[in-house]
């Protein structure tokens, strides 16, 4: 195959490239950090040969890819680690049915929870589903392993998992490009496979032994596959490791011996025994759970692992070095520990112009208990907005609400609302809404309709009106959707009119039934916002600002406090002392006016135009 030069690619871009080079024809995903760029790259660069879509959720993506695979197409699905929980149902039975076109499932784990609600270790899914998992250590491997995964999938008639972690997904390194191959399987609907694909108990019972036999064959494969390899160095210390941990251990102990596992599951028992017998001291270096360590100990091999390496957070070369040399073990392997500790923290914050701001400001002011969900709007938790009190998993806001609405006494119940983003609603909130309407719950839910999946970088969703491939499609109308689910009381707000938000909340609180508030306003990072909503930056009238700090409660990064004793003048012209005043950053204010509406003294204004 002709080499086509080199590029610096992220792990995600490299997986996309690998899919392209292997003749992949179908790719589906729901966005989720750190996996999102896989589908973005496929659509942007390889859209001519691969059909790519943002599916509604991960289960939809995997089941669709399985369909494409049954029809003979090489197919890829990608998701963040928790996405695989959503797709776990099809995942557990697909190994029974097998596939036709190679089916590759990418799970991008997030140790340290850079952008996640937990740091589950998805290697367990490979063992749970009894299928192979490959784990690359850099972008070159990410591409090669993707190609290999398609090949193994077809050879062993099974879906294959690729696991990355944030440092691999978002780490960039040099990749050698190759030409794509053409897919080989005939595309057709295979009636003759009905028995293999219809998992009635009578058929499934025949398939389980096939899964077990395949697993034995995969164990044999693991002994010989070239991505499991031994690098002999000093025999004083040996490391069994893989993924990004391999790079950290290699950086810390370049002269040691290494057994690098490219295949995370199943493990090569004979190879491990041979390696263990030749090194004096054996370590397993792996982030999160002692997954390999437990497997290796079961083989009867003595090995040091989680006694010295942390179970929480990420590793890095320092942690590996200090643990091995001095037994110096932090409870969590985290970068945070080594940042300067006494600096003011800088958590993420809603952008200037964000439509979510007005809702959270009002929810806080009106003292609601808010069952929350996942998206940019989870930032409504932070002070001073302080208007989110639960966040569990996507869709849970409505479930939490429903449960509370059903059990709380009326007075208490009326001060509880559920808040969910548009993409999250379509991912796993719609079923809840139908459940609530059908089961006659009384309460309020708020859909934050910003027309995009903002958190992960403004991916399109059915509220946007275009597909990932750039085709025009319809825009979902949440009002008619809720009506068709039997909701009788629906209110729409304008996100930049705080009065409309306040009114909607009061009205919903007083309604004796299920209310749906649709909070409308496009994400401030969308071109649509810039075109139709963005105005010139606002300024604080230095005479009128009383220094009351009320506007700072809208929590906009454009506003900041200047401590400086002085005077201000009220509407009647009287002078008063003040401790300081607020200024607005002229480089990032978008003129959304939410802060101005919060100001009791009308001190925030558009500057007069000097013509």
């Amino acid at each position: 195959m002709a080499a086509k030069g080199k590029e610096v690619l992220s792990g995600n871009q490299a997986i996309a490239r690998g899919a392209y080079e292997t003749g992949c024809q179908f790719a589906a995903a729901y966005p989720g950090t750190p996996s999102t760029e896989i589908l973005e790259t496929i659509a942007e660069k390889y859209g001519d040969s691969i059909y790519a879509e943002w599916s509604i959720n991960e289960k939809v993506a995997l089941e669709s890819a399985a369909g494409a695979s049954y029809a003979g197409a090489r197919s890829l699905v990608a998701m963040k680690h928790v996405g695989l929980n959503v797709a776990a149902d099809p995942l557990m039975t697909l190994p029974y049915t097998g596939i036709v076109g190679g089916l590759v499932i990418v799970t991008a784990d997030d140790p340290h929870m850079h952008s996640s609600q937990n740091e589950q270790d998805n290697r367990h899914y490979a063992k749970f589903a009894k299928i192979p998992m490959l784990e690359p250590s850099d972008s070159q491997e990410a591409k090669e392993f993707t190609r290999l995964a398609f090949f193994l999938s077809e050879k062993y008639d099974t879906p294959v998992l690729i696991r990355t972690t944030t440092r691999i997904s978002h780490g960039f390194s040099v990749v050698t490009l190759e030409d794509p191959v053409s897919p080989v399987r005939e595309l057709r609907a295979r009636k003759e496979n009905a028995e293999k694909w219809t998992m009635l108990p009578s058929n499934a019972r025949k398939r389980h032994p096939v899964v077990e036999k395949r697993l034995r064959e995969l164990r044999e494969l693991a002994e010989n596959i070239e991505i499991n390899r031994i690098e002999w160095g000093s025999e004083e210390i040996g490391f069994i490791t893989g993924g990004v941990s391999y790079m950290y251990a290699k950086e810390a102990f370049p002269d040691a011996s290494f057994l690098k596992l490219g295949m995370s599951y199943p493990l090569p028992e004979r190879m491990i025994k041979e390696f263990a017998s030749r090194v004096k001291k054996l370590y397993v270096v792996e982030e999160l759970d002692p997954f390999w360590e437990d497997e290796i100990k079961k083989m009867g091999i003595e090995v040091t692992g989680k006694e010295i390496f942390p179970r929480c957070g990420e590793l890095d070369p320092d942690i590996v070095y200090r643990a091995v040399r001095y037994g110096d073990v932090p409870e969590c392997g985290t970068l945070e520990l080594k940042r300067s500790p006494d600096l003011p923290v800088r958590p993420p914050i809603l952008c200037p112009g964000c439509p979510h701001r007005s809702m959270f400001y009002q929810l806080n002011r009106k003292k609601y208990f808010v069952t929350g969900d996942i998206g940019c709007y989870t930032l409504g938790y932070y002070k001073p907005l302080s208007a989110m009190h639960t966040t569990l998993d996507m869709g849970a806001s409505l479930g939490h609400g429903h449960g509370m609405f059903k059990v709380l006494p009326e007075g208490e119940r009326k001060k509880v609302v559920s808040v969910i983003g548009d993409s999250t609603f379509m991912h796993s909130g719609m079923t809840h809404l139908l459940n609530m309407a059908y089961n006659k719950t009384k309460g309020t839910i708020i859909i934050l309709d910003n027309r995009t999946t903002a958190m992960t970088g403004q991916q399109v969703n059915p509220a946007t009106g275009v597909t990932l491939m750039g085709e025009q499609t319809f825009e979902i109308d949440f009002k008619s959707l809720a009506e068709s689910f039997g909701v009788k009381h629906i209110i729409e707000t304008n996100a930049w009119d705080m009065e409309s938000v306040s009114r909607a909340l009061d009205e919903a609180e007083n309604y004796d039934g299920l209310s749906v508030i649709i909070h409308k306003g496009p994400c401030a990072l969308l071109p649509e916002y810039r075109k139709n909503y963005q105005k010139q930056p606002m300024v604080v009238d230095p005479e009128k600002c009383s220094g009351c700090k009320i506007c700072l409660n809208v929590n906009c990064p454009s506003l900041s406090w200047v401590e400086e004793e002085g005077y201000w003048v009220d509407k009647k012209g009287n002078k008063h002392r003040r401790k300081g005043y607020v200024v607005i950053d002229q480089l990032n204010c978008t003129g959304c006016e939410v802060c101005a509406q919060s100001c009791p003294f009308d001190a925030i204004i558009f500057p007069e135009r000097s013509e």
Partner: protein
Amino acid sequence: METVNIIISGVGGQGIILLSNVLANLALENNLDVKKSEVHGMAQRGGSVVSFVRIGEKIFSPLIPVGKGDILVSMELMESLRWIEYVKNGGTALINDYRLPPPGVAMGIEKYPEGIEEKFGEKDVKVFVKRVTNEAVKLGNPRVTNIILLGMLSRFLTFEVSSYYNAIRKSVKPQFLELNLKAFERGRELIEL
């Protein structure tokens, strides 16, 4: 060539990823190995962000070990301090004298840190604090702050200027190329060695 470890710090949305992309392409232009590591997603919404870039003959870890950073480039003033432990004694820090108050400071609850130059001085780090965003605004667009900093950085690395030009060309849209090359040159002028 000995490995160079570059740390880029700042606030989400400031253009750190573009700067690290140019550095990655710079390595490729010079036939060197490179790894860079940064985090996307939630952190990008105005939170502190960092990118580690390592260039050399053969790079393993994408993360830079504590105390092994050769050069720190900071897009924002106080964010430089967050990563001070990662800079080696005798290293270099190129800092944009531009303040984005974090929430506690914006609310008037905390103070913006002062004495930043001194803190680096204590570690024997050569510090250059310049009003880079101002320079970018003068060139017509605050978004080229990152490329001015690249120009400053180039004075401490040994690569040919032409390879920076090629790397910038690969990383920015054609309509912004000229502005970015100007910004790069402006950065070079800002450092007198």
